[in-house]
């Protein structure tokens, strides 16, 4: 397979875009697309100060790398969660994040939750009884709180996270299965800020997880390969794997699922009140039955079409 831009041997094939690129052009394509998404979703401008939440994983480190390559003023924030899980998880991820920051001469804020609040995330989880034995709920809460605190205290205009399309599609899938309408309406590439609450953006939300892995590898970014030990067997990973099965059979499924959702949500047509829907019905001029389509109802149009094309 050849690179679409230079005819050299391709390093990655993105079936959903029918696009194959060599390593060099892939490393150009990703920032180009990121810049396009930042503009499209009005995430931030080049004058604004960005705080990137970095975990030491491929997505957040790649995001930081891309934003810096694009010339944005982007500093990092690492939260020390105090998770060991037998693999020294927090320690390793902090080491990799600090290494990336120092090699690229970037500013990194480090907040150690235990030093700051007296207890690590697993300890806080045990004390507070939140999350049924798993510290994920406490962790999410603490991350949101601390990311916002640092953004506010240090005067950042926007908080950027490394959520990719697989992350977003998995959340969407879960919320769709349970029809959690409130959560569905809240999911967006940009969450506007308000007094005391920083604007949150997800510049990688249209890249597949596979694409971000390829970017990190091609850029030589050293990232923590293992996910948090508490994520093992989680529902979000199960949803991601399920969506990947669909994607393998039907390339583009994840992308369409997410993009069409955003479109439906932004058009205001995702959830229509029952009464509102009924008020939009009118009698079909031909059969008199209620219809929402302009002019004749779908049935009458079908019959008419069949009559004119016997």
């Amino acid at each position: 397979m050849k690179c679409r831009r230079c005819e050299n041997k391709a390093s990655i094939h993105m079936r959903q875009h029918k696009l194959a690129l060599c390593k060099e052009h892939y490393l150009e394509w990703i920032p180009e697309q990121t810049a396009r998404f930042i503009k499209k979703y009005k995430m931030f401008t080049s004058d604004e100060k960005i705080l990137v939440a970095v975990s030491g994983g491929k997505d957040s480190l790649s995001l930081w790398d891309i934003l810096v390559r694009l010339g944005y003023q982007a500093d990092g924030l690492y939260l020390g969660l105090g998770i060991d899980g037998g693999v020294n998880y927090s320690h390793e991820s902090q080491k990799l994040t600090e290494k990336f920051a120092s090699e690229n001469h970037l500013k990194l804020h480090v907040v150690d939750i235990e030093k700051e609040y007296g207890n690590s995330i697993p300890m806080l989880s045990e004390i507070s009884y939140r999350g049924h034995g798993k510290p994920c709920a406490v962790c999410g809460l603490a991350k949101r709180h601390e990311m916002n605190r640092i953004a506010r205290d240090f005067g950042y205009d926007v908080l950027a996270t490394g959520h990719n399309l697989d992350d977003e599609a998995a959340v969407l899938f879960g919320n769709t299965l349970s029809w959690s309408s409130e959560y569905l309406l809240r999911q967006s590439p940009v969450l506007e800020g308000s007094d005391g609450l920083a604007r949150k953006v997800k510049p990688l939300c249209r890249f597949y997880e596979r694409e971000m892995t390829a970017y990190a590898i091609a850029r030589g970014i050293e990232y923590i390969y293992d996910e948090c030990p508490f994520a093992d067997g989680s529902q979000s990973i199960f949803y991601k794997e399920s969506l990947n099965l669909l994607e393998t059979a039907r390339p583009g499924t994840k992308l369409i699922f997410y993009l069409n959702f955003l479109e439906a949500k932004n058009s205001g047509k995702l959830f229509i009140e029952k009464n509102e829907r009924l008020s939009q019905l009118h009698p079909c001029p031909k059969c008199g039955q209620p219809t929402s389509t302009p002019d004749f109802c779908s049935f009458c149009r079908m019959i008419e079409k069949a009559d004119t094309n016997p």
Partner: protein
Amino acid sequence: MFAKLILRDKEYEVRPGMSLLDALKKNNIIPESVIAIRDGEMITDDEILRSGDVVKLVAVISGGSKNYEMS
């Protein structure tokens, strides 16, 4: 001599002459869930595997260590 796929701590022997995509499918590995590296370079899944090839598969879902396989 076989070609070899390595995913985390698991090794899969595959017949040379096969495309990477077919080799992944034959071993029930979801192609969307991995990036393949041969001789330090990423390769696309239409690549034909040669005798003695060692292809490292990088899992793209961090944490999904148990279930890359199609059931």
